[in-house]
C-alpha cells in the first residue's frame, strides 16, 4: 500500500555548469528535457560516438526519437530545495534516485544500458530510494526507414558529409572508415545502433574491422562491390568502386 507522507520537495535544477563539471562534459542550457512533473531534468547520452554522433555522451539536446534496436542512457538531475543549489560532486544516484523504464515492453534494461526493444512510447521514470516517483520523461521509439553512412576519418567536424558511393585505389592500399546512424522521415534517430557491415565481394574490398561501430573498408583489387550496413531492421547499400 502506498501511504501519503510528507517529503521534502526537490528544488531548483542544478545548473548545466555544475553538471558539466560533475561529468566532465560540456553542456549547454538546452541539453536537458524538463521532467513532466517539474521536479528535475533528463539528459540523454550514448556511450559511443558512432550511430548516435549527434547524441554522443551528454547530448546537446534530448532527442525527439530513439531508434528501435539501439541502446542509450538517460540521466536525471533533480531540482534542489535551496534555489540555485549547486552540488558539484553530488549526482542523483548519490541521492538514491534511479532512472529506468516503468515497464520493459518498449525499453528494457540491458548490459549496455537501456535498450529500445519495441516501437511506441516508453516512459522513463526517476524514483527515490523509497520507490516514490520523482519525475518522468516520455521517449518515442521509432523504426528507422533509412541508414545514413558517413565518413569516420574526419573527426574534426560534427556534421560529416554523407556517403553515397565509395571510391578507393587498390594500388594505394586505400582504407577508409565509415559510420552510420538511423533516420525516420529524414529526422535523425538517437541511440547507439548496432550496425553490421559487410562487403558483397571480398576480392574487391573487405570490411577489415568494425570496432565501436566504425567499419574500415580496405581496397583489394580493381572492380565494383557493395558495402552493406544493416541496423535497426534496415539495410543501406553503398556502391564501392576500386580502381587499380
Amino acid at each position: 500500500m502506498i501511504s501519503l507522507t510528507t517529503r521534502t520537495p526537490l528544488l531548483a535544477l542544478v545548473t548545466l555548469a555544475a553538471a558539466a563539471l560533475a561529468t566532465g562534459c560540456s553542456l549547454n542550457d538546452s541539453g536537458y528535457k524538463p521532467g513532466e512533473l517539474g521536479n528535475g531534468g533528463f539528459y540523454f547520452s550514448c556511450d559511443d560516438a558512432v550511430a548516435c554522433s549527434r547524441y554522443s555522451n551528454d547530448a546537446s539536446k534530448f532527442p525527439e526519437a530513439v531508434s528501435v534496436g539501439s541502446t542509450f542512457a538517460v540521466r536525471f538531475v533533480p531540482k534542489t530545495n535551496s534555489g540555485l543549489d549547486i552540488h558539484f560532486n553530488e549526482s542523483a544516484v548519490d541521492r538514491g534516485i534511479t532512472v529506468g523504464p516503468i515497464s520493459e515492453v518498449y525499453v528494457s534494461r540491458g548490459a549496455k544500458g537501456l535498450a529500445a526493444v519495441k516501437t511506441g512510447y516508453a516512459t522513463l521514470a526517476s524514483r527515490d530510494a523509497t520507490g516514490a516517483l520523482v519525475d518522468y520523461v516520455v521517449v518515442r521509439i521509432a523504426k528507422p526507414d533509412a541508414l545514413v553512412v558517413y565518413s569516420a576519418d574526419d573527426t574534426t567536424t560534427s556534421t560529416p558529409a554523407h556517403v553515397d558511393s565509395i571510391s578507393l585505389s587498390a594500388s594505394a592500399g586505400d582504407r577508409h572508415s565509415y559510420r552510420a546512424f538511423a533516420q525516420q522521415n529524414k529526422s535523425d534517430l538517437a541511440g547507439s545502433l548496432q550496425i553490421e557491415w559487410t562487403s558483397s565481394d571480398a576480392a574487391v574490398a573487405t570490411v577489415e574491422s568494425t570496432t565501436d561501430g566504425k567499419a574500415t573498408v580496405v581496397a583489394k583489387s580493381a572492380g565494383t562491390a557493395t558495402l552493406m550496413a544493416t541496423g535497426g531492421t534496415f539495410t543501406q547499400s553503398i556502391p564501392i568502386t576500386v580502381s587499380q
Partner: protein
Amino acid sequence: MSARYLAVVAATAALLAGCAPDYDHTELSIGKAPPKPLAGSVSYARVHVSVGAVVTARIVSYDDDHKEMAAGLRSKDPDIVEVTGVVNPGDYAFLGLRPGQTEIEVLADGHLVLILTAVVTEQPPLP
C-alpha cells in the same frame, strides 16, 4: 464506586466516541496525463492508462472536521497497473504495465473509502 458514577463515565465515553471525526469525502483531480496518442485519465469511477504510460492524480480524503486523513492507495493487481506515491505530497501515479482491468482501492485512516476501476490498454500503433 456508585452505579450513578459509572453511568456518568459511560455516558461521557459514549459522547467522546461519538465526537471522533468520521470520513467525509475524497477529493480527486487529475495531475499529468501522458502525451497524445497515449491514454491517460483519472475520475472518481475509473483510471485509464496505456501500457508504458503514466497518469498522475491528486487524491486527498477529508474527515467531517475538514481535516486531511492519512491516505493510501493500492492496486489489486500491480502487474496490470502499479500505483506509486509521488514526491509531491498528495499526488499518486498510475503506471500502465500490461493490458487488463483491475481495481484501485483508496483508503482513509486505513479504511476503504473508494474503489476505482483501472483499465490498461495497448498503445495505438505508431504511424
